[in-house]
């Protein structure tokens, strides 16, 4: 629990004493974190500090051993990942994951926000959905690839496709696991701009990232992880000066 | 059997099927319409037998019996002056195969006559196919009660007795023994097969009525190979009589498992298995005293039997067994009807053959046979026992070749 957490911050996503261990290794160790609603939150830390495991626990990909997760006041601890997604938390994966043998358009039509009999039987050709899909494809800049199979896209394009797919689910909060990982600098810029724009439109972001330049320029609020728990948080400029952060990064 | 001819017809059939299924609208040959037989054409007889699968051992025996019959008939000038030709298909002991086999034999190949398959399980479905095409259906193996309860009018069982009556002589004999020698307890294990159960339960029920206590009553599916626990239960019961409703391999396995447990009954009766020529070596030659019912005896003096044993031995180099004889009997029954009625083809003729058999008695290798309206024969089976390394008839008294051995020597 970080003592410096500003009291007045509106919390969108909050964990309390979240813990997960694999065998003898505790990957997330009683982590209590609050992310700020409506902002771009950064989650940084040295390799192996448990960021991705934390992500997975929050989004229900793995079940935490102890602790709780709440989203906008609702407890979502141990909810399956599809429920978490439908609650409004979209996410991307560290090694980007798309549906390789489906077309770009089909990839976008997967997301489900309200499962009902009507949605189930609605034609996938639904023009309204397609129009939404084209909108997001244009936004991420791969609308010309609509009919290509996802496996034939370059890695950078797949990252954009993954992001567009997440956006199709109309999430309020978007968790990105290393959005800049493995892509060229031009694309990093494009992704950063996109995040900015979307944030201006009201989306909350939580970003795990190693690219410090990106984190410092993009994030409003940064949480630093070390050994499975937060050791510091605050504005990027403050974090950079924090001795504990330096120790964590240099000590490892 | 004319394998080549048969193969070619089958290939044509397959292509016809492929072509039709591929929906090429072309005329195909090979329908039953070809059946209009010229007088010198052979009479084609269709059979489906379990040459592989659970019943392959007896199935092959039946096959040999049919082949021997065809060969002997042809040597004597055939039926109605025409040669006979068998067309034998393998049903792999599957009910679905046996139906499609008979269907293809009757409808596709247009055979003139059909003979029955082996095992009660397969008789019922195939008899129905025959019935629905109006064919006479004489069969060598469907002895269980249910076969005759299906309302078939075309079916005849070519053996002296239905399964439940196979052990009648043995039951009567055991119950007639004086108080001290009469067995008091019995253990039963039977394959889950209508024929095997029919035989075993016929004996079981008669003994039970006579006051013998049934200590163990087990049923196992046809594919069972591990008999150690069933044997353990039987051995534990120390029953005086062990009754095995067996076909072949299961009987062998059960006996070996009983031997391994050193169980020594006074009476051991097993259906079918002990009459198999390989039985003795399969159980390590410890056969002394094992009983089995048989509808047929190698040494019976019916004229056709003497001829059958002699000619069969000449053809195959060893004497026939019961399955072979039952198959041969089937052939004799059909042949008698064909000769009497004077026809052998699909259509009207079949009903005439059926009517004739309902009204007449046929001389066969198992003696004279006649049937009730459901096709049940009205005789009883002989009881055989292994004595001095050979299987001999011990019951009834007027047919016996050796004296009944009780208690049975240790195995």
């Amino acid at each position, binding site marked *: 629990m970080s003592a410096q957490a500003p009291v007045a911050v509106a919390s969108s996503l909050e964990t309390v004493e979240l813990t997960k261990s694999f065998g003898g290794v505790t990957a997330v160790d009683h982590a209590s974190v609050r992310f700020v609603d409506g902002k771009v939150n950064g989650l940084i830390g040295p390799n192996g500090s448990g960021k991705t495991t934390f992500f997975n626990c929050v989004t229900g990909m793995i079940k935490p051993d102890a602790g709780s997760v709440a989203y906008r006041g609702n407890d979502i601890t141990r909810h399956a990942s599809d429920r978490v997604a439908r609650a409004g938390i979209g996410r991307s994966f560290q090694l980007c994951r798309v549906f390789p043998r489906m077309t770009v358009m089909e990839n976008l039509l997967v997301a489900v926000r309200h499962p009902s009999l009507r949605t189930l039987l609605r034609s996938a050709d639904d023009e309204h959905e397609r129009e939404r899909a084209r909108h997001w494809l244009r936004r991420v800049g791969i609308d010309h690839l609509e009919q290509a199979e996802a496996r034939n896209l370059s890695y950078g394009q797949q990252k954009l496709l993954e992001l567009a797919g997440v956006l199709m689910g109309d999430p309020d909060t978007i968790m990105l696991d290393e959005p800049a990982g493995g892509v060229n600098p031009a694309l990093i810029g494009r992704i950063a701009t996109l995040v900015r724009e979307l944030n201006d439109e009201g989306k909350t972001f939580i970003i795990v990232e190693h690219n410090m330049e990106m984190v410092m320029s993009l994030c409003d609020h940064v949480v630093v992880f070390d050994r499975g728990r937060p050791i510091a948080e605050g504005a990027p400029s403050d974090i950079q000066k924090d001795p504990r952060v330096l120790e964590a990064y240099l000590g490892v | 059997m004319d394998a080549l001819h048969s193969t070619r017809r089958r290939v044509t059939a397959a292509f016809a099927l492929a072509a039709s299924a591929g929906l090429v609208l072309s005329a195909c040959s090979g329908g039953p319409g070809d059946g209009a037989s010229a007088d010198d054409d052979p009479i084609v007889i269709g059979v489906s037998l379990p040459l592989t699968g659970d019943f392959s051992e007896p199935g092959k025996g039946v096959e040999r019996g049919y082949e021997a019959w065809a060969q002997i008939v042809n040597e004597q000038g055939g039926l109605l002056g025409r040669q006979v030709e068998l067309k034998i298909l393998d049903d792999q002991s599957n009910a679905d195969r046996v139906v499609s086999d008979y269907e293809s034999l009757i409808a596709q190949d247009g055979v003139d006559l059909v003979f029955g398959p082996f095992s009660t399980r397969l008789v019922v479905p195939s008899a129905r196919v025959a019935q629905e095409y109006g064919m006479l259906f004489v069969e060598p193996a469907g002895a269980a009660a249910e076969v005759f309860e299906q309302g078939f009018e075309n079916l005849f069982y070519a053996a002296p007795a239905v399964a439940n009556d196979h052990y009648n002589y043995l039951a009567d004999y055991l119950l007639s023994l004086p108080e001290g020698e009469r067995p008091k307890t019995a253990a039963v294990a039977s394959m889950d097969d209508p024929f095997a159960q029919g035989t075993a339960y016929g004996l079981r029920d008669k003994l039970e009525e006579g006051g013998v206590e049934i200590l163990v009553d087990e049923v196992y599916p046809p594919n069972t190979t591990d008999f150690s626990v069933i044997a353990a239960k039987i051995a534990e019961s120390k029953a005086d009589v062990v009754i095995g409703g067996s076909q072949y*391999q299961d009987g062998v396995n059960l006996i070996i498992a009983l031997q391994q447990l050193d169980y020594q009954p006074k009476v051991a009766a097993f259906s079918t298995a002990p009459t198999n020529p390989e039985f003795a070596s399969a159980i390590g030659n410890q056969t002394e005293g094992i009983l089995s019912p048989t509808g047929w005896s190698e040494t019976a003096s019916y004229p056709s039997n003497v001829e059958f044993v002699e000619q069969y031995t000449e053809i195959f180099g060893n004497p026939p067994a019961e399955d072979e004889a039952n198959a041969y009997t089937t052939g004799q029954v059909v042949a008698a009807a064909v000769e009497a009625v004077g026809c052998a083809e699909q259509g009207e003729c079949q009903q005439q053959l059926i009517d004739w058999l309902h009204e007449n008695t046929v001389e066969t290798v198992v003696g004279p046979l006649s049937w009730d309206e459901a096709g049940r024969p009205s005789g009883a089976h002989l009881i055989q026992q292994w004595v001095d390394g050979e299987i001999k008839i011990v019951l009834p008294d007027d047919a016996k070749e050796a004296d009944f051995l009780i208690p049975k020597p240790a195995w």
Partner: protein
Amino acid sequence: MSGSLLLQSVILGVLLGGLYALLAAGLTLYFGIMRVVMIAHSAFLILAAYLAWWFNRETGLDPMLSLVVTVPVFFLAGFLMQRLLVSRLKPLTLTMMSVLLTFAIALIIEGALGFIFTGTQRRIQLPYAGDSLNVFGAQVPVVKLVAFVLAAFALLSLYLLLKYTRFGRALRATIQHPEAARLVGIDTDRTAGYGFGLGLATAAIGGTALSLDATIYPSLHWHWIGPLMAIIVVGGLGSIPGAAIAAMLLGISQSLLQLPLGATWAQTVFYVALFATLMFRPQGFFGGRLAQRF
């Protein structure tokens, strides 16, 4: 029901469990190495049993001598099968496709056995087939004892091989962490091939042991694959000790349940255990799904 019958059943269960343990060890080995469910394992088992029977019939020698040939041949067959067939499958669909591929191999073996040896049931006639030892009032068939000793010996050898040899360490490393194994210079592809060979070698031994006291026919393998798969799931996929313990427990349970339930119903114990495992402890009861232990 007397004590001696109970003892009898326990002993028979242990003897059967030994064979199950050996075969399940092979099956779980393939899974550990490559996440392959080897449906053809029991088909190879029956193949080995047929070869032992055939060897005995042709030469009149003890069927166990056929191991001298079948074990190396099966090892080679397993190695080639992994290198030439299984490794061709795409990693993404490996698990599913390998099931189908090994299923196809099982069909081919069954069909070939039926083609060559016909569907007739076969049984080796050993001079000591009917002999038994008396143990505290229970009769223990000598052939079953011999089969058990053979299986136990093979299982022990497998254990020692994996535990104490260089190859065993490489294999375990490949199972636990293939990337790390590659980093330290282990040729994981080749090792996986050897692992497959090892698995098939256990089938060769198991088949020979089986042939001593069982009736065999080509489609018999279906009656083995179900229980074996249940065993490896209950034991924890990929865990060899788990498989061995589960095999023993289920073998004894089956044997004991046969007394009140009869042979057929008793077989359901495997499937009940399988479904119970999946409902309550899908990672298995006696080992991790990652085969962490040996």
